[in-house]
Structures are given as structure tokens and as C-alpha cells.
């Protein structure tokens, strides 16, 4: 393992690896190593020392950090100025049963968005600029440190969800958002999936700007006594507006709406996949059109599951034998099923996502080649 603490050292390492044609694995907190196809027995480039807040300007809504910065540190720095990240980044350590500090670089690289994506989009909508070292050992900047920019190709988008296959990230600049002073979590209880998701979609279509819409089925381990299931709504705002939004939500749904004690913590657990921590089965994150959630959940029919994004994201714990069904349903519904956790053997066989059709595979290979022609960075991970 080679530990580096600045970009110049990363460049030296990559150039050396290139000269020796030795592929390597990029690692910081190490909490996301079990995602994607396993990479075994490769030298590791350990970048967790490239960490810390580089520049934070609350008035510009911009925060530049080094990728090894831990998620709690970043959130706490932003919270001190009443701000936060837009994509509500998740720490999936519990799902994978690993310890260590999840980093912002890792969260961007795997696009670990949380329930807040509903309001402010996934990581790609927050990352304005990056610095990184490509597979040629060159330091490249993409995007710019301003909130509005259309100069040249939008390279930061490519870094989100690339699983470190295009560049070793050395600096990330985010657009950040105000953190409303109050939040409330409300629940419609004792509703089956059909009714529950319909409630959530109704709120999603409203002007209430919800920051979380999730469904917990009966028998879930996060919230007891939900009857047939609970539709959960997270609303935010200052004191009076929040009150008004709550009243509007009740009127809109025409159903009893209870305050959920500890609701914010509940949403954080949904975000981090805590319910799937002890799952002995494969864990999937399946993105689908929200309206299809009740039907698809019924068809897959596993006991341990939940719906986020008003139904647009299903978390499922399923036996390996369900993999073909899950991938098939995702493909048939214009969606994608990400295999979040599985045995090495099953991940190697199933891949992180279904293989893309040939023209798309060709474009993706071309992009990989444009950044890393020798295939040095995290080879084969996605």
C-alpha cells in the first residue's frame, strides 16, 4: 500500500504505475471497497491523508474539500454555517459491516445519494468542479468554482458514479444549500404499498418541496406498529412555513398524519441502509419510475425491503436466485438495479449494474480510454 498526502505524490505514483503497467486500487476510508466487482490483489493507493476543508465560502454557496474528508466532518463544518450538501450523502458501512470513516470522495465516486436527492438531485447536481489525476499522471481540473458555468465539457458529471475508474480525485468543489432551521417527519400509518406510494407521489407532485418521501412496509425493523405499512414525509422550513406545509399535507392527503418521534434519525437510517445491516441476502438498490414501485415490489416479493424517493428507489434484500428477476424488471421499466452487497463470487458474476447495450458500452469504453488508456485505475470495478 502506498500512502500519499498530496496531488504531486499521486501524480508520481500514477506515472510510476504507468511506466510499470501496474494497475492499482484507489482507497481512502475503505468503506466502499465491497461495492462493485471485486478487485483483488492489486497494489493500493491510499489517499485518506488528502483530507480537510480547502476553502469554504458560505456566501458563495461553495465548499472545496479534499476527497479524504470524512462525511461527518464535512457535514459539521457546513452545519456551523447553516448549510449542507444537496445530495444527502449516505454512509453504507453498516450495510457492508465494515468500520472506518466514509469519505466525501467515496460518496461522490459511488454516487451515494440519500433521501434528499428528491429535492436537490444526486451527487452530479452538487459537484461543480474537481481536480484529479488521470491515468496519464496528469493533473486535470474540470468544471469551475462558480455555481453557473457552461464552459467546455461538464467533466465533473463523469466523476460522479465512476467508482474511481477515470481519475484519482484530489479536490472537490460543491455547490451547497441552506439548511432549513426546522424539519418534521409525518407518517400515514396502516397503508399497504399501493395506497402508501400513492400518498407519497401526491406529496411529490405538490408545491411542498419535500426532502424525503419513503415507504416502510409491515414488519420493517426501523419503525414499529405501522400496521400494513407507513408512508413517511419529511418537510422542512422555518417555524411558521413548516406549520403551514404540515397543514397543507394533511389537507392534500385527506388521511390522518402523525408526527413521527425521532423522524429525522429514521430518515438517516433509511439513507444509510441500516435496515439491511444484518441481511444475509444480497442487497439491491433498484431505481425505477416511482409509479411502478408497488407493482415491482409485489412481483419481487421479498420480506425485507423499503421504498425511498416516493418509490423511485427500492431497497431489497433478496436471495441470489432473485437476481435475474430484479435485473429483468429494472430493464423492462427503464430502470437500473445496483447490486449493493453480495458475496465476492456473486458480485463478480452479476456486476454492479447490468451490462449496457453494445453502442453504450462502446461510448463508456471510449470515455475510460480518454482518461485512463492503460486501464490502471480501479480496473473492472464497474
Amino acid at each position: 500500500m502506498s500512502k500519499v498526502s498530496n496531488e504531486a505524490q499521486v501524480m508520481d505514483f500514477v506515472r510510476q504505475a504507468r511506466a510499470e503497467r501496474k494497475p492499482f486500487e484507489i482507497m481512502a476510508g475503505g468503506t466502499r471497497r465491497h461495492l462493485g466487482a471485486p478487485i483483488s490483489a492489486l497494489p493500493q493507493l491510499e489517499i485518506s491523508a488528502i483530507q480537510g476543508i480547502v476553502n469554504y465560502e458560505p456566501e458563495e454557496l461553495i465548499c472545496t474539500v479534499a476527497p479524504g474528508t470524512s462525511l461527518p466532518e464535512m457535514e459539521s463544518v457546513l452545519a456551523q454555517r447553516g448549510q449542507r450538501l444537496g445530495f444527502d450523502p449516505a454512509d453504507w458501512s453498516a450495510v457492508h459491516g465494515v468500520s472506518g470513516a466514509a469519505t466525501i470522495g467515496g460518496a461522490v465516486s459511488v454516487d451515494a445519494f440519500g433521501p434528499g436527492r428528491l429535492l436537490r438531485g444526486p451527487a452530479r447536481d452538487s459537484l461543480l468542479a474537481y481536480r484529479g489525476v488521470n491515468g496519464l499522471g496528469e493533473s486535470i481540473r474540470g468544471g469551475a468554482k462558480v455555481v453557473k458555468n457552461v464552459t467546455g465539457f461538464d467533466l465533473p458529471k463523469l466523476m460522479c458514479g465512476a467508482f474511481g475508474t477515470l481519475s484519482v480525485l484530489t479536490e472537490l468543489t460543491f455547490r451547497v444549500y441552506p439548511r432549513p432551521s426546522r424539519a418534521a417527519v409525518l407518517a400515514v400509518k396502516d397503508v399497504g404499498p399501493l395506497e402508501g406510494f400513492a400518498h407519497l407521489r401526491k406529496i411529490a407532485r405538490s408545491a411542498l418541496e419535500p426532502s424525503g418521501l419513503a415507504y416502510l412496509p409491515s414488519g420493517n425493523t426501523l419503525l414499529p406498529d405501522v400496521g400494513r405499512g407507513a408512508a413517511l414525509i419529511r418537510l422542512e422550513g422555518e417555524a411558521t412555513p413548516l406549520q403551514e406545509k404540515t397543514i397543507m399535507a394533511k389537507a392534500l392527503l385527506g388521511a390522518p398524519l402523525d408526527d413521527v418521534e425521532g423522524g429525522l434519525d429514521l430518515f438517516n437510517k433509511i439513507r444509510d441502509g441500516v435496515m439491511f445491516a444484518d441481511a444475509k441476502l444480497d442487497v439491491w438498490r433498484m431505481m425505477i419510475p416511482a409509479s411502478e414501485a408497488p407493482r415491482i415490489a409485489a412481483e419481487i416479493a421479498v420480506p425485507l425491503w423499503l421504498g425511498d424517493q416516493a418509490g423511485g428507489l427500492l431497497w431489497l434484500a433478496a436471495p441470489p436466485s432473485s437476481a435475474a428477476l430484479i435485473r429483468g424488471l429494472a430493464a423492462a421499466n427503464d430502470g437500473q438495479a445496483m447490486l449493493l452487497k453480495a458475496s465476492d463470487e456473486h458480485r463478480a458474476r452479476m456486476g454492479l449494474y447490468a451490462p449496457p447495450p453494445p453502442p453504450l458500452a462502446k461510448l463508456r469504453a471510449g470515455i475510460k480510454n480518454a482518461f485512463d488508456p492503460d486501464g490502471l485505475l480501479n480496473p473492472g470495478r464497474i
Partner: protein
Amino acid sequence: MELPPPDQDILARRDEIVAALKTIVSDGVVDDAAGRQVFDCDALAAYTQQPLVVVLPKTRQQVIDVVKYAHAAGVPIVPRGSGTSLSGGSLPREDGILLALGRMKSILEIDYENGCLVVEPGVTNLNITKAVEANGFYYAPDPSSQIACSIGGNVAENSGGLHCLKYGLTTNNLLGVVFITPDGEEVRLGGKAGAQGGIDLLGLITGSEGLLGTVVEVTVKILRKPPVTRTLLGSFDTVQKAGACVAAIIGDGILPAAMEFMDRQCIEAIEAYNAPGYPPGSAAILIIDADGVEADVTDTMQRLAAVIARVGGISVEATDEAQRVRMWSGRKASFAAMGRLQPDMICMDGTIPRKKLPEVLERMAEMSEHYGLGCCNVFHAGDGNLHPLIVFDQSKPGEFEKAEAFGADILRLCVKVGGVLTGEHGVGIEKRDLMPEMFTTQELEQQGRVKCAFDPGGRYNPGKVFPTLSPCIEQGHLHVRGAQLPHPHLPRY
């Protein structure tokens, strides 16, 4: 500014190319000189060029067939939507097929359950909102040309508008596209679920200015129209106070729906033009919109008024819709108002860190004096996007060149203070040769390799965005002659 020289071999094969295209799109090939003349520029009218031939497909299959033909025949393609680009993104080539998608304008599906619309690329931005507004929905990005500009063009340019600060640019409001690669392959990226399962090529294509291929279907997010929108006007006796106010508003955690800045020159020109009644003697004013549910907007308005008072400004809230419209009428007339001062005008489009505004305005005032040309500033203050308007008289020898040099100096200044060459108009041909001001050679090469992944032959919109010639000529601009913008019926602000 020059495009790469035309390929003489292609020019010699023109008849054969036209005939082949006619077999693909029998009712949509424009090859006569008069017809081609119509397409010889976009809204950057300082540059004109007749295309080799114009083809107007009606179906996806026709697009695929045209692209495959061009690929096999080695002919460049320039894609075009409504031709409203302010940076010359769809400027034709003498040796290129102009692939105009304006006839593909069907709304394919409206899906309220999933909050999205599926449309063809030629549908105008405004028609997306019109298709859903009866049910209380709208499409958020609102470039000033929205009555004419197409959604395909919006994807290509990553178009913005007045409301980007809160609602984002085009890229933040897209769920998916169907895309034809330069070799004619159909690729679906994302869709109603907004999921791509791998590297985000949708994000790359958005804003790629037609260099990577052609979009033939777009899935956009729609939002519920906010029930309440209110407007507040802040006036300040110094630019510094106005700049401090913008920082204080954002620092206070307020996210206005729109926040527009105008400087003294601009205010004076506007008052002389349509007299919206801006406070006399102001050095700068801000027009600020808040939207949302009633209590949210009321709360925001109170906080805005408090911040404005705190920094030493004076605020007036519009009490009814008529006053609201009047406040905005001045801002929306700013281009036309400035255009009356001199026969010609160019509009720049840089973004700066907001905190640099006073410094940048001061430097621009010095440049204005240095070049002896008038300049005023309208500014999307919320997101730091600056639109300096330079006025001049082209009939005076050397004045156009001076205006161009002034504009280039402004963009260099934007980059120098940590900003960018373009916030929403695109690089196109206009700012192509300034790209090295912002990117290193290695960075430009990296972007060039990305282009190669899609278009190894370099046949898609060649000569745009990336400098292929030595950077020796100053860039062009949105050129206004006699207060007449290109497409004078389109609002521009």
C-alpha cells in the same frame, strides 16, 4: 474567428450528397441558395455561412439514416434546433450538412405520476410548460428566448435563465435522452427513473454544444407551479452595498427564486426607455423574487427586507401583480434600452464569484474609460452570472474592434478573479479562442480525448468550442445593430 477550411472534395460532391439526402427525407431537404440563406446564421448574427445543404428530418429513423449516410460519406454535420444560440453553436459550414430538428416537435408523453414529460427535440421550451400548465405544472429552466428555443438546443447548450439559482440549469432538470452517435447508433441514457447504471454520459452530453451527437428524445422533470410568487426591489447608493447585500442574503440562508442586479448606467438607460419607476439616484438595484407556499414567501420577504435595511439599502415590495410586472419590465427591457444608446451593442456572458462583483465593476468602469465605449451591467446576482452590454458605433472606424477587445478583456477578467468565460450562452465559435485563458493545454487535450470517444472523425460541429486555430483573433459576440437584435421578436434579458 475562422472555421476550419472547407473540404474541397465535399464541395465537389454536393449534388450527389443532396440527392442522397433527398432519398432519406424526401420532403425536407433545402438545397437552393435562397432557402439555404435562411439558415446562414444563428443569433450570433455577426457570423454567417451558407450550409452545404439543410436537412429537416421528421422522424428518429430519418435522423439515424442521415447520420449514417454522413458518416459513410465523410461529411460534417452541424446540428441545429431553433437557431437561437448566442454563441454561434449552430453556425453552418460550407462543407457540412445542417441537421435542423425543428420539425420533430411532438410531445410524446405527459406523465404526471412520475413528474415528467417525454418530448422530441424540436419542442420549444415554452411549449413544454404550456403542455402542463393547465394542471398547475411547469418546466423550470427559462432562458429569455424560451418562446422560440428548442429543448434539444437547451440540452446542447445546458441553457439557464432567471431561476437557475433555485432550480438549476437544464442539466439539473433532465431525466434522460435518446441520442444518436456520430456513427448513427441509437443510445438511451437515463429515462423516467433518472438512472443510467454507470458513468453519467447524460451529464456529459448536456452542454456539449452539438459536438458529440444528436438528441432525438428528451425526458424532462416538471415541477408544481409555486402557489405564491412575490417581488421585492432593493436600491442602494453604492455598488459595494448592493454586492454586500447579495452576499448577506445568501449568507442568511435565503434562496431566492431570482435575484437580478442592475448598475447605474443600466438603470438610467431603462428609465429613459420604459420608465418602470426605479428609485432615482440609485447606484445599483436588485430585483428579487421569492416563491413557494404563502407562509414561506411571507417569511422570506420579511428576511429580505431586514437584510437590505441592514446593509443600508431601501426596499420596496410589490403590492400587486401590476407593480410586480412593472418592476420586472425594466429588467427585461434592459437590452433594448441599452441598444438605443448607440447603434451597436454586444452582450458578454461570464460568471464570477459573487464577492468579486464590486472589484469587477470597478475594473470594467476603468476599461470603459480606456476604450472610450459605454458599458452597463445586468447580472444574475444570485448565481454570479454577468451580462455586460457594450455599446458602440460600427460605422466609426475601429470601434467594432475596440468593442471586441473590450469584451475579451472582460472575459479575461472574469477568469482571473476565479470565474468562467460563459455562464449560460455557451462557448460556440464566439469564445472558442479564449478557452486557453481558462484551461491548460493538458486540460484541453483531456476534453479533446472525450470528444474523440464519441466522434473520432471530428465531423460533428467541427470548429466549435475548442480552438483548432492559433488563438489570435478576438471573439465575436451577440451583435446588435440599430437596436435590433437578431430575432427581434424574442425577448432577451
